[in-house]
């Protein structure tokens, strides 16, 4: 009886809150060594070890030796089954405060946490959606019963439900570029709710569906209070990459500029061609914008980029001071940095691009698997 009491389930949402609150946790990850090396749960006060579950079939003693007493314990696997199996034995061995992750890394990969960034001048609000397991960020602008979603993720239900809770109808979905690390939910969501899907035309050469052209010089309005979304052409991560200025205060950079890094130019196979665009955007175009803008990127690479309550944001002028990618004065050195020694490419990135172009239509389960792993859109990870 005591053993069952000591064992509880932890949801991805509970784990997210714990990471954001910087609480202590000891994680035993029982996936294969390769999967663990590729991608794991991270947090400021999280200790994590890896012992594949099949090494614990004869008993959990090898794990017990390494698990500190008195700490909250979470056992994690790919889907749930083997973590529950191992966690039960750890609890039976007399350890307390033992949890297993509901739905495993699959559920961790898909959890989205909405965080309010700010009220807007005209009375609306801006929200950031933190996909903490994968490091993706989406945004929702809400004003006077209308909403626009930027860089919508595949889990479109979350956005629909959130808009509903705000009493808003989604009118627009926008992609800052053709994504290579995650499957966009923008088109699906726009079709479902009868909204408009916006995509930069230069990234849409090969797409198989209709869309509205996200181009500089054309504002998108949300709500009666006129929260403007102003596109700024900013190529470099892709040829079409377009940033958005919301309410004259926030710069949504897509995958061009992150808090601690800059975008990589190689995911469409054109690093050499696009490196010049990337430099031009970061060192000239963005320099010409108001330095008081608050940068809101489409990704984070490290948990250190998560600020208070999980918000990922920074003032543009601060990034020009601190972000290493904005401080490579010599062009040749910049070229080397963004084309050589890049991290491995995101899982299934070519298939993900094909999916986002509408060229292939994988099943839900295939889509889940394509997205497993970290985002890897930055030069430094």
């Amino acid at each position, binding site marked *: 009886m005591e053993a069952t009491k000591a064992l509880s389930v932890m949801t991805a949402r509970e784990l997210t809150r714990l990471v954001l609150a910087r609480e202590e946790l000891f994680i035993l990850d029982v996936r*294969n060594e*390769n999967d663990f090396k590729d991608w794991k749960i991270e947090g400021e006060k999280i200790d994590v070890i890896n012992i*594949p579950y*099949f090494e614990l*079939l004869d008993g959990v003693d090898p794990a017990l030796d390494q698990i500190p007493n008195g700490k909250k314990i979470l056992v994690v696997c790919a889907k749930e*089954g*083997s973590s529950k199996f191992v966690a039960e034995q750890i609890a039976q061995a007399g350890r307390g405060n033992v949890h297993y992750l509901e739905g495993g890394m699959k559920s961790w990969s898909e959890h989205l946490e909405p965080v309010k960034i700010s009220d807007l001048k005209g009375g609306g609000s801006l929200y950031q959606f933190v996909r903490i397991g994968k490091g993706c960020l989406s945004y929702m602008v809400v004003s006077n019963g209308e909403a626009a979603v930027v860089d919508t993720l595949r889990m479109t239900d979350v956005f629909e439900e959130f808009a509903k809770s705000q009493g808003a109808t989604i009118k627009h979905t926008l992609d800052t570029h053709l994504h290579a690390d995650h499957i966009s939910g923008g088109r699906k969501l726009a079709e479902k709710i009868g909204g408009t899907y916006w995509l930069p035309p230069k990234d849409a050469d090969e797409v198989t569906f209709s869309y509205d052209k996200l181009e500089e010089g054309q504002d998108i309005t949300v709500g009666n209070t006129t929260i403007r979304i102003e596109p700024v052409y900013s190529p470099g991560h892709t040829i079409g990459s377009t940033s958005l200025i919301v309410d004259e205060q926030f710069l949504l950079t897509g995958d061009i500029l992150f808090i601690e890094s800059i975008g990589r130019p190689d995911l469409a196979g054109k690093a050499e061609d696009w490196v010049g665009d990337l430099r031009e955007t970061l060192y000239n175009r963005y320099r010409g914008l108001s330095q008081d803008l608050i940068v809101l990127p489409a990704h984070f690479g490290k948990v250190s980029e998560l600020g208070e309550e999980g918000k990922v944001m920074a003032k543009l002028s601060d990034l020009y001071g601190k972000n290493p990618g904005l401080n490579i004065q010599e062009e040749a050195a910049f070229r080397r940095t963004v084309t050589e020694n890049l991290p491995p490419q995101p899982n299934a990135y070519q298939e993900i691009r094909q999916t986002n172009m509408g060229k292939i239509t994988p099943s839900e389960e295939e889509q889940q698997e394509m997205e497993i792993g970290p985002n890897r859109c930055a030069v430094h990870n």
Partner: protein
Amino acid sequence: MQVDLMVDTKGLACPMPIVKAKKALDGLTTGQVMEVQSTDKGSVNDFQAWVKQTKHELIQYEEENGIYKFFVKKI
């Protein structure tokens, strides 16, 4: 190939395919071959890692209509 023991784990989710396979392998003698059938996609990576770690030999692996077949020789 001569198969000495067939282990059917079809329909079972992780960790059961490997739990069953391990139990079956414990009962074999050196040189004998077991065939494990699974419908769990995750078992593909797990089987390879498990066989490697336990230092037995994965002689063959094949997939047919969503059924994964592993042939493991006890060393």
